[in-house]
C-alpha cells in the first residue's frame, strides 16, 4: 500500500497525518509493506521530509518518539515535488511512485490524501485520471481522501463532488469529518444501541431537548484567510455539528454495514426542518467576538486579528434552534452552538430528559429539581455522565444532583487514539462507515444555504457581538432562555 499525501509538506500533514501514521506504526497496525509519499510544491529531499515529519511527530504525537520505531517508520517516508497544473504535471510523481513501489515490492494499491485547499481538489483528481493513477475498479486499489471544507456552498460542493465522481466511484471516496473519528462520537452508537437503558428514552416522549456545544478557546490564529471566507456556520455547523446531530438522532440501523449507517445519518439531515427567510432571524444567532480576556490574559477582538478586515462581518459564533421533523423527534428542539474565543475548548452533547411532574419532590416552584441530563463529552476528557437526583444522607429529605461519570482516560488508561488514526486505518481497511457520503454532504449544504442566503441579504444587520472569553452574546442566551431552558456550559 502506498499513501500519497498531496499537501504532504503542509500543516495538516505535520500536525495530524504524519503523527497519526506514526502512532499506527507504533501500534503495529499499518500494512507490513507500506510507503508514505509526501507531495508538495516546495522541493524537499527525502531526508528533509523525514526531518519535517519528525518535528511534527515530536510536537503533536500523543506518544513520544521511540528511536527504533521511528527509524523503521522514517524509512517508509519519501517526498516528491509536483504541481497539479499542466498536462504532465504528475508525471515525475508517477515515475517516482513506480520506483518506490518496485523497490519495496508494493502491489500498486494507493491511497491519495488531498490535504490541499478545496480549490485544488478538482484539478488534482483530474490530473490523477490524466496521469492514469486511478486504475479500473477491478484493478489495484485506488482510494481518495478529501478533507473538509468540501465547497463553500451547495453549488461549489456539487462541482467538487462531480469532479471527483468523474474519476472515482463513490465507494472509493473518503470524505473526512474528523469528528466522526473521535472515540466518543463512535461511542454514541455503542451507548445508544448496546445498552437497554438509553435507546428507549431517545425520543419525543422522554427528551425535553438536546444541546450540542462545540466551543473553541482559540481565536482565528493563522487561519484568517480561510476563516474570513468560511465563518462558524460553514466551518463547524455544516459538517461537524450536523454530523453529531445525525449520530444522536438517527434511527437504529439494521446492521453495521457502512451504507446502512450512513443511510440513517442521511435520513436525519433530510428531516431537518428548513430555516429560511425571517425564520433565520428568529432561530439563528450569529455573532463576532470583540476584545476580552482568555485565562486572565487580554485577547484581541476578531477584527483586530491579523489578516481580518476591520469591517469583516464573518461570524465567529453561531447558535441555532433546530427541529427534526420525524416521528421520533417531533417537538424536541435541538440547540446547537459553536464559537471561537469561548472560555474553553470543549465539545459536548447533552440530552435533557423531561422533568418529573411538579409534585412530591418537585413541588416547590422556587427550588425545582434538576432534570436528568445525559452528557456526552467529545473533547477533552472524553466520556459521558448521567446526572440523577439523590437524597442527601440525613434525617431530612434533601435532594442533590449527583453524577454517574465515565471517563475514557482513567477507565481504560492510556490515551485514546486520535481521530485521524482511526480514520486512516479505516481507509486502509476500506471501511467507509465514518466518512461522509456525497448525498450527506450535499444534504447538509442544502439545509445551511437558506441561512447563508439570509445573512448575505442582511449584511452586518443582525450580527451580534460578544467579548472574547465569554459564552457568546446575550442574543445566544436569549435564543434558548426564551423557551424556558438554558445553555449547559461544558
Amino acid at each position, binding site marked *: 500500500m502506498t499513501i500519497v499525501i498531496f499537501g504532504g509538506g503542509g500543516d495538516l500533514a505535520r500536525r495530524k497525518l504524519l503523527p497519526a501514521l506514526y502512532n499506527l506504526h507504533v501500534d503495529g497496525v499499518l500494512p507490513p509493506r507500506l510507503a508514505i509519499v509526501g507531495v508538495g510544491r516546495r522541493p524537499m529531499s527525502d531526508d528533509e521530509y523525514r526531518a519535517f515529519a519528525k518535528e511534527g511527530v515530536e510536537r503533536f504525537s500523543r506518544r513520544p518518539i521511540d528511536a527504533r520505531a521511528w527509524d523503521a517508520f522514517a524509512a517508509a517516508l519519501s517526498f516528491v515535488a509536483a504541481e497539479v497544473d499542466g498536462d504532465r504535471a504528475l508525471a515525475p510523481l508517477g515515475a517516482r511512485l513506480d520506483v518506490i513501489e518496485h523497490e519495496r515490492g508494493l502491489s500498486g494499491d494507493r491511497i491519495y490524501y488531498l490535504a490541499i485547499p478545496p480549490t485544488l481538489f478538482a484539478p488534482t483528481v483530474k490530473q490523477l485520471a490524466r496521469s492514469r493513477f486511478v486504475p479500473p475498479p477491478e484493478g489495484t486499489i485506488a482510494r481518495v481522501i478529501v478533507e473538509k471544507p468540501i465547497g463553500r456552498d451547495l453549488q461549489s460542493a456539487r462541482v467538487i463532488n462531480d469532479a471527483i465522481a468523474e474519476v472515482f466511484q463513490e465507494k472509493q471516496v473518503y470524505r473526512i469529518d474528523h469528528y466522526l473519528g473521535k472515540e466518543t462520537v463512535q461511542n454514541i452508537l455503542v451507548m445508544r444501541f448496546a445498552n437497554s437503558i438509553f435507546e428507549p428514552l431517545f425520543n419525543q416522549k422522554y427528551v425535553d431537548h438536546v444541546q450540542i456545544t462545540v466551543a473553541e*478557546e482559540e481565536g482565528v490564529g493563522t487561519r484568517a484567510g480561510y476563516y474570513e471566507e468560511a465563518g462558524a456556520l460553514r466551518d463547524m455547523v455544516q459538517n461537524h455539528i450536523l454530523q453529531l446531530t445525525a449520530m444522536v438522532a438517527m434511527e437504529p440501523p439494521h446492521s453495521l454495514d457502512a451504507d446502512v449507517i450512513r443511510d440513517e445519518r442521511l435520513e436525519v439531515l433530510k428531516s431537518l426542518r428548513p430555516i429560511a427567510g425571517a425564520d433565520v432571524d428568529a432561530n439563528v444567532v450569529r455573532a463576532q467576538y470583540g476584545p476580552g480576556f482568555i*485565562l*486572565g490574559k487580554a485577547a484581541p477582538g476578531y477584527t483586530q486579528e491579523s489578516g481580518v478586515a476591520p469591517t469583516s462581518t464573518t461570524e465567529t459564533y453561531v447558535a441555532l434552534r433546530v427541529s427534526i421533523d420525524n416521528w421520533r423527534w417531533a417537538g424536541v428542539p435541538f440547540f446547537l452552538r459553536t464559537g471561537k474565543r469561548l*472560555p474553553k475548548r470543549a465539545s459536548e452533547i447533552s440530552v435533557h430528559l423531561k422533568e418529573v411532574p411538579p409534585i412530591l419532590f418537585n413541588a416547590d416552584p422556587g*427550588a425545582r429539581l434538576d432534570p436528568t441530563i445525559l452528557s456526552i463529552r467529545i473533547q477533552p*476528557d472524553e466520556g459521558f455522565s448521567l446526572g440523577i437526583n439523590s437524597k442527601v444522607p440525613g434525617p431530612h429529605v434533601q435532594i442533590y444532583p449527583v453524577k454517574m461519570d465515565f471517563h475514557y482516560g*482513567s477507565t481504560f488508561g492510556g490515551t485514546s487514539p486520535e481521530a485521524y488514526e482511526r480514520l486512516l486505518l479505516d481507509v486502509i481497511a476500506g471501511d467507509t462507515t465514518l466518512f461522509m457520503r456525497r448525498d450527506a454532504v450535499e444534504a447538509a449544504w442544502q439545509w445551511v444555504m437558506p441561512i447563508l442566503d439570509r445573512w448575505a441579504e442582511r449584511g452586518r444587520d443582525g450580527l451580534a457581538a460578544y467579548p472574547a472569553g465569554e459564552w457568546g452574546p446575550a442574543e445566544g442566551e436569549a435564543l434558548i432562555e426564551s423557551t424556558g431552558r438554558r445553555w449547559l*456550559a*461544558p
Partner: protein
Amino acid sequence: MAGAVADRSWRASTPEAIDADLAVLWRDVGRGETSVARAVMSNLIVFRSPASGGGDDMAALIAGAPVEEVAARHPSRVIVLEHCHGEAPRAPSAAAVGILTFGPPAARYGVELIVVRSACPEPSLLSILRRFVRGDIPTSIWWTEDISDAAPSGALLTVGRQLVFDSRRWRDVRRGAAAMAPLVRHHRVDLADVNWRRLAPLRRALTHARGPFQSGAWRSVEVGVSHAAEEAALAWLFFGWLRGQGVRCAEPTPMPQGAATAPENEGSSALLAVAIGDMHATLSPRGADVVCPEAPPLSVAAAVESEADAVAAELRSLAPDRVLAAALEAIVERFER
C-alpha cells in the same frame, strides 16, 4: 472516615496546562492497585489571599482553610484562587493541580484540586473561572476572607449559585454589612453564612419557648441582646433575625466583663445573652438555654460540627435560606440609616 486523606498526588502546572495535567494525574491514579472513583458533586471556588507561609507543596498551597476536610465531605472540583489584591495587574502567574483521595481501599474516591495564583484585574478573573468550572454541576464560592475587608464583586458572583462565608471573621460588622448590601439587594446568589448555623439552637429554643412569630407573644415585646467579645456579628445576626420577622430588638451591646456564664451553662462561656421581658436566654458553644418564670427551663443542644462540616452542609443545600436573607437585609438597613 471523612476528612482523612489517603493520598495526595499533585504537580506544579501552568494555567494553560491545568486540564492536561489533571488528565495525567487521573491516569496515574488509575494505574494504582486501588481503584479510585472520581467524585464531583459541585464546583467549589475558594477565594483566598495568598498563603502566608509560602512553600510549594499542596499542603502549603491550601493551608489556612480546611479545604481537604470540606472536599472529603462534599467532593467537588476545588478551584483555589489566590488573588493578590493590590499588586500590579498581570496574568495568572502560577498554578498547581492535585488529586486528593479519600476513603478506605474498597471505596476510595478522588477529588480534583486546582490552585491558581493571580494578580490579574478582576474582570479577567472571570475568564479563569469560566475555564475551569464544569457547567453540569452546581457552583459555590467559598469566601474564606473577611468580607468586611475584601468583598467579592458582583461580576465574580455570576459564576456561582451560592456564596458561602463566615461572618464570624468580620472585624467590623458595619463594614461587613456594607459589603453585603449589594449581595442582599440583588439576590444574585444564595447566601450561606457559616456563623448563622451557630445561631440555630437559640432560634429553635426561643420559637419553641415563645411560639411562632405569627402568634401574639412576640408582638409587644422588646428584645435585648448582649454578646461576648468577638461575637458581635453573631449578635447582629440575631438582631437581624428578629427584625426580619418584624420583632422589635434593641441593638446588640457587649456583655459586661465577667458576666458571661449562665448558671445552667456552667463551664461554658455564653456567646449571647438575650432578654425578652422576664424570659432570659443564653447561647453557648454547648447550645441554647431558656429560663422563664412560669415554665421549666428549656435547652437545645448545638450540633457538634467542625468548620468543614458546616461548610459542607451549606454546599449540599440547594435551596436559598430566605430567613438568613431577611436577617441580612435587616442588618444592612440598620447600618444604612
